[in-house]
């Protein structure tokens, strides 16, 4: 009788078990695959059409394979200039925002001071505010520097007419929020005893920061910088308000597609995508090798 009971238990338990195993085996990978395809199709189409030997002005219909686009990636009026601007703005705004954002993140997690709570909340605002609102209010601000009473304070020509400087200021502004949030997340699990240990072993505050604190939060700072770079190089809405006559790559694309859709857009897009993939692969490989050496 004891055996019968035991068998009964086993049979009852094994039916849902088998279903569970089947789900694990097939359903989850299937859903994952569908999701991945959904994410990647636009990119695949972009890459395929970068090899299109298209006719007319618009690169919409497949006409045949060519390497022309890849051999002449910048061959379109205005493209080299806008791309240079985009890279320059992305680079500078990333560096500035990462430095400032890391320092803000550190002070917000480390120190008690007045208005700390308020700053903690305010730092989220640029992320929560619609870009269109940020862009238009920034435009108002920049234009008003050329009008009384602000024109008495702000040097003539520094913020108006609009240009690279105003785009940079705008990008640094929204990037700082993302950097602060990312760095703060990394600092949340930071063991302060490590810094005490460094000081205990004779390192002053400066050495402690560079030998212990920074190496340990570096992954967070790096992630923040990458995020800032991609946000900056991709931004259209805010940039459109504050760029004046200066073109960035997204602004240039927006302008050109009314008249033409050159294959170079696909080529540049593909290059950006492939660089990102290469970068991720490289870091994964490096950390993988580091793990193996350990």
């Amino acid at each position: 009788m004891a055996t019968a009971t035991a068998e009964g238990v086993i049979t009852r338990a094994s039916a849902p078990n088998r279903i569970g195993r089947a789900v694990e085996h097939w359903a989850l990978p299937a859903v994952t695959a569908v999701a991945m395809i959904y994410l990647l199709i636009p990119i695949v189409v972009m890459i395929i059409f970068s090899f299109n030997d298209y006719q007319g002005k618009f690169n919409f219909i497949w006409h045949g394979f060519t390497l022309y686009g890849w051999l002449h990636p910048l061959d379109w009026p205005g493209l080299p200039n806008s791309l240079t601007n985009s890279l320059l703005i992305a680079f500078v705004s990333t560096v500035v925002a990462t430095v400032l954002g890391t320092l803000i993140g550190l002070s917000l997690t480390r120190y008690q001071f007045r208005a700390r709570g308020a700053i903690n909340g305010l730092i989220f605002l640029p992320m929560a505010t619609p870009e269109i609102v940020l862009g238009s209010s920034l435009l108002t601000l920049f234009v008003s520097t050329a009008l009384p009473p602000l024109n008495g304070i702000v040097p003539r020509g520094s913020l108006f007419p609009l240009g690279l400087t105003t785009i940079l200021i705008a990008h640094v502004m929204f990037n700082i929020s993302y950097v602060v949030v990312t760095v703060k997340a990394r600092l949340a699990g930071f063991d302060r005893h490590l810094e005490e240990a460094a000081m205990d072993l004779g390192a002053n505050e400066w050495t402690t920061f560079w030998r212990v604190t920074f190496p340990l939060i570096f992954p967070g700072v790096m992630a923040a910088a990458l995020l800032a770079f991609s946000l900056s190089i991709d931004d259209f809405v805010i940039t459109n308000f504050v760029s004046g006559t200066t073109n960035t790559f997204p602004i240039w694309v927006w302008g050109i597609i009314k008249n033409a859709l050159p294959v170079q857009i696909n080529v540049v897009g593909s290059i950006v995508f492939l660089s990102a993939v290469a970068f991720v692969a490289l870091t994964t490989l490096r950390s993988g090798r580091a793990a193996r050496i350990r």
Partner: protein
Amino acid sequence: MPGVDVRLVDVVKRFGETLAVDHVNLEVQDGEFFSLLGPSGCGKTTTLRMIGGFEEPTSGLIELQGQDVTWLPPYKRNVNTVFQNYALFPHLTVYENVAFGLKRRGGLKDGEIKSRVGEMLKLVELPGFDKRKPNQISGGQAQRVALARALINRPAVLLLDEPLGALDLKLRKQMQVELKRIQQEVGITFIYVTHDQEEAMTMSDRIAVMNRGSYEQLGDPESLYERPTTRFVAGFLGVSNLLPGTADGTAGAYAVIRLADNTRVRVPAALVNGNHNVEVGIRPEKIRLANPDSAASPETNQMRGVIKDASYIGVSTQYIVESRGGSQLTVYEQNVERATRAELWAPGEEVALSWTPEHTFVIKDTTPHDADN
């Protein structure tokens, strides 16, 4: 001649409203293994952190080898710390962790650093671990690395903040012996913080038993155990039977104390020191149990009681005996002569308890303490 290595004068530390350390005065001798023992929240770790320079005292003075270090940052004190969770730098190898202090000092050649790190790793019995990262070694090994990393700087004083707390019992016992060996080998003053009385007793030359921000008694392990002066110390170090009573004359070198059940017991007169209300304390292993009809030695203190409970725990048997006055006493009897359970005292049996007056201690402070044990 050994001098004073660490001196604390009237050190107070407040955290807002809380008084963490309350006017502590301490002198730790050169080369001593000194322990701060107490329950969590008694201020022992805060005291240690102030010596290390991680906290600034609210008031008071901290001296290190005669130099006032009260306001110096940790990196300007000739003190090193072994942290509770080791605080090994996770991004550095074992070698780099141990060499960290030497490299900060500067002026040392790579070769010298290398040989000293090697020496240190040998001392803590971890040779060949140089290239490992902290996440690739066990807790006991991490403990040794933390010790090596601190000792390599040849500090005047080594501070240890419950360094064995994260280890399992067996490893902890092993490390206690190891720590004591290393301390004797390097001859550096150790200040050791722990809540484990056995750990403190095993290793220390002297112990300060802390409670509520200051120490209640300071002394070597033996005097703390044999002659505790407060209820808290008596309860924190081992088990005690405390019997309230009043002074009732003297008998030679002894003072006579009348207990609640009118039994008169003798205690060394010096311990009573003119106090009227006292508590007489006896450790459970110092009490002998005998048949109430047998003749007792006149040199001993006597008491009658009834066995309430007997628990056989192998090496000894633990009895709860209720005295006539109603107080419950714990008695340990070694299982030497009574080998079988049938020979043990059974609950309900009447017994005579006896102990020599020299084995008693006296607690003058009879105010109730909620922090007992």
